[in-house]
């Protein structure tokens, strides 16, 4: 396995590092501490990042994007997340759905949606899946309950589909211009067999944004409600086939897992850097913090876990989502990105808490605000896709159910 970088990969990495250090990091804490969850977002940073190519990085070159490969995606995401995890996620959320457009949309849909997406620095993408009563039921639909899953109803009326219902916790809900929306099109069939996905622009009549979630971490990232009241969507916006909605995301799902692994790595890099800086400059009781054995052991664990995560991220990036199993004589053995996501969730929590711990001490009544933010951002990992649900999905896919 060769992990040496090409000049182009290295150039993207350095460009992302510069942007993260010079633009994201300086506003990271400031945006995080805005009290109103609708006001944490900053369009200026999105525009700046978009002009550097981060928003459209994975759109193929023939459509006006940059077509960066998975290794480059991992490098860029890690660097951006080191500056600010939630801002990095806002860009990579667009990559996730660019992958889906590329894989599943018709030439006409690409023409209608990819062109404006590429041309407009403020055009963001989203996917509306989760509903109030469909959290893990949407991630891991039960086989024995036909009622479980999406309730948002889509009914065909001539050349249009009429959508009624509600989505919640939707990423980029209050800022995106285009959503993939999962709907129920057959109430007598399961989530697997009775759902359909549509492309829905935000200016669709009958669609509005509800509340923006007030999260403890990832505060810049806008999760919110989308309310559909007789929203009218043209039949031409149907993605794939009717009642085959859950089969669409075969290609995009591993990306979401991979993306979270790489983003977690960026947070870990930030935590390690912060801790290294602190222990080598902080002087107490006639010695630097780093001269304490207990500090060395904590730092050692932080670095060990971070480097293990980096190896995992880069292996998935280098080999693609279908990995070769060296133990089985190079047989392809399904995708490991879900395991990467779960490993990242464990590592990012442990590493950020160790960093906070290193910033503590005896008689401490204040704590480093940056170290505390990283811990709050890391907590998101066990909530955004459902931690145990994600772990069960990983093993079920691996076994092949």
């Amino acid at each position: 396995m060769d992990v040496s970088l090409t000049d182009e990969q290295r150039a993207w990495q350095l460009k992302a590092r510069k942007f993260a250090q010079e633009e994201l990091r300086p506003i990271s804490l400031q945006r995080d501490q805005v009290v109103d969850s609708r006001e944490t977002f900053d369009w200026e940073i999105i525009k700046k990042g978009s002009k550097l190519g981060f928003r459209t990085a994975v759109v193929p070159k023939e459509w006006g994007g940059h077509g960066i490969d998975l290794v480059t995606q991992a490098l860029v995401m890690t660097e951006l997340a080191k500056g600010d995890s939630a801002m990095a996620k806002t860009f990579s959320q667009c990559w996730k759905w660019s992958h889906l457009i590329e894989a599943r949309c018709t030439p006409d849909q690409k023409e209608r949606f990819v062109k404006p997406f590429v041309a407009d620095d403020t055009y963001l993408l989203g996917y509306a899946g989760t509903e109030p009563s469909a959290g893990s039921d949407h991630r891991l639909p039960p086989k024995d309950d036909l009622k479980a899953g999406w309730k948002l109803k889509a009914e065909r009326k001539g050349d249009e589909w009429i959508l009624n219902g509600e989505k919640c916790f939707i990423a980029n809900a209050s800022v995106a211009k285009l959503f993939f929306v999962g709907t129920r099109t057959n109430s007598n069939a399961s989530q697997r067999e009775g759902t359909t996905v549509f492309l829905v622009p935000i200016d669709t009549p009958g669609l509005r944004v509800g509340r923006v979630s007030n999260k403890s971490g990832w505060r810049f990232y806008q999760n919110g409600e989308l309310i559909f009241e007789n929203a009218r969507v043209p039949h031409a916006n149907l993605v794939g086939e009717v009642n085959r909605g859950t089969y669409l995301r075969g290609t995009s799902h591993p990306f979401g897992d991979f993306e979270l692994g790489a983003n977690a790595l960026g947070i870990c890099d930030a935590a390690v850097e912060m801790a290294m800086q602190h222990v080598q400059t902080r002087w107490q009781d006639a010695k630097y913090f780093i001269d304490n054995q207990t500090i060395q052991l904590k730092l050692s664990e932080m670095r060990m876990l971070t480097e293990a995560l980096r190896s995992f991220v880069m292996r998935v990036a280098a080999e693609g989502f279908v990995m070769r199993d060296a133990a089985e004589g190079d047989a392809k053995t399904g995708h490991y990105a879900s395991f990467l996501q779960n490993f990242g969730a464990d590592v990012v929590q442990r590493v950020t808490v160790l960093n906070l711990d290193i910033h503590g001490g005896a008689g401490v009544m204040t704590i480093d605000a940056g170290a505390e933010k990283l811990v709050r951002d890391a907590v998101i990992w066990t909530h955004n896709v459902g931690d145990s649900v994600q772990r069960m999905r990983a093993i079920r896919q691996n076994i092949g159910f």
Partner: protein
Amino acid sequence: MYDLNLTAEQLEFRETVRDFVKREIKPITLHPDRLQPFEKPLLLDILDKASRMGLRTLALSQELGGAGADNLTSCIVMEELAAGDVDIATTLAQTSTLAQFLFDQAMTPEQRARFLPQFLADDRYHLAFAAHEPDPDLGWKYHRPVAGEADCRTTAVRQGNGDWVVNGVKAFIANAPIAKLIAVQVRIDPKTSGTGGVSTLLVPRDTPGLSVRDHHDIARQAGPDGRPSLLWYHGTRGEVVFKDCRVPADHVLGKEGENRLTGAAQSVRRGIPQLAAIDLGIGRAAYEAAVDYAKLRVQGGRHIIEHQAIGTILAGIVIKLEVAHNMVWKAAWALDHPDAVAKRSLSDLPLQTIASVFTFEVVHEITLDAAECFGAMGVMRDMPLQKYVHDSRIFLHSGDSNSVAKFRIAEAVAGFR
């Protein structure tokens, strides 16, 4: 004998406080309007009501007008209060513990006659002990003396008529913003160093030359690295400034020059199991919320409590909670029965520190696991779960953080202290 049968009085205390928390505290503290903002001002009205129930004077002896609660009873009460609001519990625990130390142990009869009636009569009369000075933290000392109180730079200079003039600054003093009587550690002999020459003076809040600022109102200072920092404690804390502050001669606590440090240290030790009990209260609130939700929420065709994944999380939570509970009660009981250590029924290791380190670690895990049961709702600021996570995290890294507390345990194991 270590007996886990609670007395009728302890059971009644628990029921009364639990009912108070359910009716009066939770509707306010768990309301989204209070959960969402970053700053959560101390609920003074609730503190008043708690005082009228006798919780401010909980540990003060019955002879002096308190409830005479021992350490175990105090832990039971503080756990219940903290299940409603950690700041209320921390504030009351501080005043109640100090009341027992100051009025029952440290004051002369004359001092008691002067301060006790005001203290008993006024529901808003809280107490503070000002020792900590505004230096950075004490680091990670192991097998070496802890500077701490030895670094007392606040001075008291004797005047011709015997009065003292105090100058200096104390920082992050628990309860200072609401305290009406502050016991302050001062150096009375500039020639000595260490703990010699340090005394404790009783200073009423309205003494000219004494000013107190709530740390929430002080422009947020940068941390030791010059980076932005957050306040990281429960309850309320303030900076106490003495500027030519004149204190009468007879306000010395104990014999002049003979610092009641031992007594203060004892009172701190009494406080440790109560802090652990407060953290247990947070853990229990998170656990109860998770069980309620798991019985209500349907996914995968059944209530999520019926899924192995959630059931196992809840089992893990309750195992940790029960074991921590046991250790906290044992540590409190040990303080109430010093003979048990003397007669070697109990280990002479610092059981209180052991209990708190274990509790702080597992309650942090408990709150994270409980929040996980809520899926995305578990990270929302208008829900209680992230407050529980945040509150339990503060215990891990503030005051004597767990890492440093482990040094203290190791030093005891080595026979260093």
